[in-house]
C-alpha cells in the first residue's frame, strides 16, 4: 500500500528511535524511552491473545549472539522475535567459529554477509556491542555487556514500575546489593533518574564502585536507609561469577546485613513493590518470604521483558529506515 492520503494511518505520526541501535540508556532520549514503553503496552496485549503472533517482522532476520550464559534474556528475545514473525538464528560462544579464535569483528562481518536486519548481542566485555554497532550497518541491540549496560532490562523494569505505579517521575527507588558488578543497576539508575525518579543505591562499601555518586543517585551503605519510605525496592544479584562474593566474608553475613527480609521490607511504603532482575540467590540477597510475597513483581518483570523486546525490535527494524 502506497501512502493512502485518506487513510487514518497517514494522519498518525510516525516515530522511530533516535538511533539505529540500542546500546545503552545514556544514548537514547526521554522521548525514546516513553515511545518504547508506550509501544510495549500494545505488544503486551498481543501476549495475552489466544494467537500470540503478528506478521509485522515477516522476512526480517535477527541474529542472537550470546557470548555469555543467559536464560531469561535469551529466551525473552527469542520469544519476542517469534511473536513478531521475524526469522531468528542463534549463535553461542561454543560450537561456532568463536571457539576457533575468530575475533568479534570478524564474526560480525561474516554474519553481515548473510544480511541480518538486527543483531542482539550479549558479551562479557563492556563495550563489545558498541564495537559491532560502529562497524556494521544493521541494528545492534545490547543484551548485556560486561559490567556496563543492560538497556532492555532497565526498560522492562521501568515498564513494570510504570504499570504498577502509573508513573516514574517522583518515585523513590531503592537499588540494593552488588552495585559494582551490576550492569542492571547502571542502566536502571540512568533511566530512572532521566525520567525523574529519585534513586538510592545501597550496598557494602566493597561493592560500590568508585565515583558512583556521579550517576546522580544517593549512596548509602545501610540497606535500611535506602528502603525507608521507598516506592520500589530493587534487589541486585550478588554476582559471584564476576567476583561479587569477594566483597564480603560469607553469604550468611551478607544476608544478615544486606538481605531483603520481611522486616526490612516493612520499612518501605505499604504499597511498595519488590523487584529482582534474576536469577535470584535466595537466602543471600533476598528472603524467599519476600521474593514469593504479595508485593513481588519479579515474574511480571519476566513477562514484561517479552513486550519490551518486541517494542524495541519493532521500533528499530519494523520500518525500512530510509528517511
Amino acid at each position, binding site marked *: 500500500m502506497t501512502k493512502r492520503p485518506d487513510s*487514518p494511518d497517514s494522519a498518525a505520526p*510516525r*516515530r522511530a528511535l533516535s538511533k539505529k541501535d540500542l546500546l545503552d540508556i545514556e544514548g537514547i532520549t526521554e522521548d525514546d524511552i516513553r515511545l518504547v514503553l508506550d509501544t510495549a503496552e*500494545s505488544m503486551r496485549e498481543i501476549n495475552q*491473545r489466544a494467537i500470540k503472533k503478528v506478521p509485522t517482522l515477516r522476512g526480517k532476520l535477527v541474529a542472537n549472539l550470546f557470548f555469555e550464559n543467559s536464560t531469561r534474556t535469551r529466551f525473552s528475545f527469542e520469544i519476542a522475535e517469534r511473536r513478531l514473525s521475524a526469522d531468528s538464528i542463534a549463535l553461542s560462544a561454543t560450537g561456532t567459529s568463536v571457539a576457533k579464535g575468530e575475533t568479534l569483528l570478524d564474526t560480525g562481518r561474516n554474519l553481515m554477509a548473510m544480511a541480518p536486519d538486527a543483531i542482539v548481542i550479549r558479551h562479557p566485555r563492556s563495550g563489545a556491542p558498541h564495537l559491532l554497532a560502529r562497524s556494521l550497518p544493521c541494528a545492534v541491540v545490547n543484551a548485556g555487556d560486561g559490567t556496563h549496560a543492560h538497556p532492555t532490562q532497565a526498560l522492562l523494569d521501568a515498564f513494570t514500575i510504570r504499570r504498577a505505579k502509573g508513573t516514574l517521575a517522583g518515585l523513590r527507588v531503592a537499588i540494593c546489593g552488588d552495585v559494582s558488578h551490576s550492569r542492571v543497576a547502571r542502566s536502571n539508575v540512568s533511566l530512572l533518574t532521566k525520567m525523574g525518579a529519585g534513586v538510592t543505591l545501597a550496598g557494602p562499601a566493597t561493592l560500590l564502585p568508585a565515583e558512583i555518586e556521579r550517576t546522580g543517585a544517593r549512596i548509602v551503605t545501610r540497606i535500611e536507609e535506602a528502603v525507608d519510605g521507598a516506592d520500589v525496592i530493587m534487589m541486585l544479584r550478588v554476582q559471584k561469577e564476576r567476583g561479587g562474593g569477594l566483597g564480603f566474608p560469607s553469604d550468611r553475613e551478607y544476608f544478615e546485613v544486606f538481605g531483603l527480609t520481611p522486616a526490612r521490607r516493612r520499612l518501605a511504603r505499604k504499597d511498595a513493590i519488590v523487584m529482582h532482575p534474576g536469577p535470584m540467590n535466595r537466602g543471600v540477597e533476598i528472603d524467599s518470604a519476600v521474593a514469593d510475597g504479595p508485593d513481588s513483581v519479579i515474574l511480571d518483570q519476566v513477562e514484561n521483558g517479552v513486550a519490551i523486546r518486541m517494542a524495541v525490535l519493532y521500533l528499530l527494524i519494523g*520500518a*525500512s529506515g530510509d528517511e
Partner: protein
Amino acid sequence: MGEAPGTFRKVRLLDAAGMTRAISRMAREVVEAEGGTDGFALIGIRTRGVPLAQRLAAEIARTEGVQVPVGLLDITLYRDDLTTVASSPVLKKTEIPFPVEGRNVILCDDVLFTGRTVRAAMDAILDFGRPRKILLAVLVDRGRRELPIEAEYIGKKIATSATEIVSVTFRETDREDDVWLLDREAAKAAPKVAPKPAREKVPAPRRRSRKK
C-alpha cells in the same frame, strides 16, 4: 483531518445532518440484516473507524435499547507497507473485550478505498479467533479497490479520481462532523494545458487559406 497542504475543497459529500442520517440508516440496516441485536459485534479500525462503530452502537442502543459490544482495532502490525514507510507508525492499543469466536464481526472504517486496510484488519481479527462472519461498514466507499473487498453497509458511495482525497471528520476526533471531497492543487492546474494545442491547430490552416 482538515485540508491537507496542497489540496482544496471540491465538494461537500455529507454535512453533520447528512452524516447522522446516513449512520442511522446504516444502524437500521445492520439490525435488520442481523435479525436483532444478538450475535454480532462492532469493531472500529483505528483511528476514524472507532467513532463510526461507537455511533452505530449508540444508534442501535437508542432504537433497540440494547448495547452491542464495541471493540477497537489497531492494524499497524498487520500492514503490508511497513517496509515502504520511513519509521515505525505509532502503535495504539487494540481492545477487543469479547470473544470473536462464532460471532458476526462488523468491521467499521471511515473510508473504503484500496481495501488494504480492511485486508489487514481481517488478518488481525482472525488472530483473535474464528468469527462466524466478517462484514464491513464504511461511511464512504470511494471505489478504486486494489483487492477484492466489498462493504455490506455503506453511508455514501461515490466514484473518485486517483488524485482526489476523501476527508472524514468526526466530532469525537476532530471537533466537527463533516465529509469533503478534496483534490490536489496540481490537478486543478492540469486541465488548462490540454486545450491549447487544439486551438493552435484549427486557426492555422484558415489563416493560410485567407492569405492565398
